[in-house]
């Protein structure tokens, strides 16, 4: 196994009109937990989507390697099957597609998850229970009419079912009440415990991090990674905010 699950080097990316991410270097080792923090509009979510291969964004320079292979030119579906998972900040509603059918289809695309129908139903039933979801959710249309908290639980359900090598959680904690946050945090813990997966948690709220053992913290300002440190950087940001990094430009990196 490579010691670099994700290796981003010199990455510049953005839309057709503007470059949003500038010269990003980021390395994630297998089984580690990273936090990406920064003020609103810093480009954190954009980085998550670019790693996932969102066609909205164009990569103008640099490379993204995942699990030893260069995936810079790969489409999102290929990156997903390779083991990258992006949990959406605002999951998309898909009318006409029951959650159960969706889960069955995405699991069926992954030979490593091969199981009988009975095993599959037992597995998703068990995961739903773990996330305090009534089994009737499985027969509802994907995310249609779900509350913000319910949508995030569905994201966690997919995370636990697919057990990707890398999970990028894009502001998974936003808009959650205390109870939903606890359920989501349990889901993240369960993911880490079940497959020793790698986490990149994008957030500007430190509460979701309370139950995680964070290995590295990265700070992004204006599309640049301006600081990096251990878990001790989080309480510092909590106390002093991002102004220190905005003022120093490229921070203490």
């Amino acid at each position, binding site marked *: 196994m490579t010691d670099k699950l994700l290796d981003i080097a010199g990455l510049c990316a953005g839309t057709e009109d503007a470059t949003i991410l500038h010269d990003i270097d980021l390395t994630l080792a297998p089984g580690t937990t990273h936090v990406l923090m920064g003020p609103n509009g810093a480009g954190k979510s954009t980085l998550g989507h670019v790693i*996932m*291969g*969102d*066609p*909205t964004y164009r990569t103008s320079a640099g490379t993204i390697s995942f699990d030893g292979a260069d995936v810079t030119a790969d*489409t*999102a*579906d290929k990156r*997903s*099957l390779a083991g990258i*998972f*992006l949990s*959406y900040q605002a*999951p*998309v509603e*898909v*009318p*006409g*597609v*029951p959650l*159960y*059918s*969706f889960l*069955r*289809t*995405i699991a069926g*695309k*992954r030979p490593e998850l091969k199981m009988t*129908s*009975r095993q599959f*139903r037992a597995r998703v*039933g068990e995961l739903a229970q773990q996330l305090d979801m*009534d*089994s*009737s959710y*499985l*027969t*509802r*249309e994907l995310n249609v009419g779900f509350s913000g908290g319910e949508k995030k639980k569905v994201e966690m359900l*997919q995370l636990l079912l*697919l057990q990707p090598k890398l999970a990028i959680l894009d502001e998974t904690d936003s808009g959650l009440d205390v109870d939903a946050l606890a359920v989501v945090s349990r889901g993240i813990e369960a993911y880490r415990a079940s497959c020793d997966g790698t986490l990149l948690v994008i957030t500007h709220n430190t509460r979701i991090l309370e139950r995680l053992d964070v290995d590295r913290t990265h700070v992004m300002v204006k599309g640049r990674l301006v600081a990096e440190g251990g878990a001790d950087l989080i309480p510092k940001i909590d106390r002093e905010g991002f102004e220190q990094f905005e003022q120093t430009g490229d921070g203490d990196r």
Partner: protein
Amino acid sequence: MATSTLERLNTPPAQTWNYLRINDAVLEVPAIANDPARDYSASVDATPVRPDAHAGLEMGAGDAATAWLTSAATSAASRHTVRVSSDSPQLVEVNLSAGDVTETNVELGPDAEATIVVTASASPADAPSTTGNLLRITAARGARVTLAELVALPDSHQHLDDVGIELGQGASIEVRQYVLGAGTAVLGLAANLAGARSSLTLATRYLARGRERLDLNHVVRMRGTDTRAQVDESGVLDDDAEKTLRATIDLVRGAKGAKGREQETVLVAGDGVVNKTLPVILCDEDDVAGDHGATIGSVSQDQLSYLADRGLTEEDATELFSSAVIDDAVLSAPTGAFRDAALAIARDLLGDQAANDLAEAEASFEPRGGDAR
């Protein structure tokens, strides 16, 4: 067999240019053939229809359809009036097999609750036929209604569906329609939101393939103050299928605070598909909101991106949407007859293994909106 032609079916309130051929539908039907000995099912005590009881109730498929259905449903067993009071929620089940035509009136008293399930199915071995469902629903103050309809017929059969709904103050109805198969299916639904704060949600899901023809007419009259309507039609058209949808939200003078929304999603999977839509919002009141949205042709970019992030290509996504229409009908089946009819289509189109999986999943998980069984 002698036939007659029903003209001006599914006529919308506002007409458009004739050359678009969208102003109405035509259907060739048997010249009234009904077996008086046939026993139509209804799971509740029923009394005969009073001929003039619902005069004035607007019906979705129009006068010609209503007249034919009324004439065709001549036996006592095929005509029902069900009265529901607040002390006893009711299940009204109408199961149509090849050639059946029924007329059903459901009258809900104040705060009453009813689930109405209409299932039209037939075996490929049955001789070609027309099934028909005439359904009138009147809901008094605070009443709640769930209506589930399934058309799951071989393409040698056709179906005519004519529904009229009237809601009193604070009454609500949730309608789910599935059209999974029929050579020709004509479904008209008209709802009169007469009472203040009455509400309707209508979701129509369809899968049309081969040379199947689907004709839909949805008319929502918003008359009461602060009424709400959410109309959502979505489906998949494959091969040489034809679909026509007319969807009208009429914000009538006096309906202050009313909000109506209509949303259509059509996935065109076949090269020979004909897809026509006439969305109309009529407005004669200032303080209202009405809007319409449509995604026609392919899966929306947002949905494609989300599905790609889970490992699905565009081709996978199209297949998922097609099979999901059938899955959804099975997984949300409120009755055994509904489930069995949807599963028959699943076996035909998705194969035995997928159908068995669905049947077991349906038995394992609670259906959306609860199980009426």
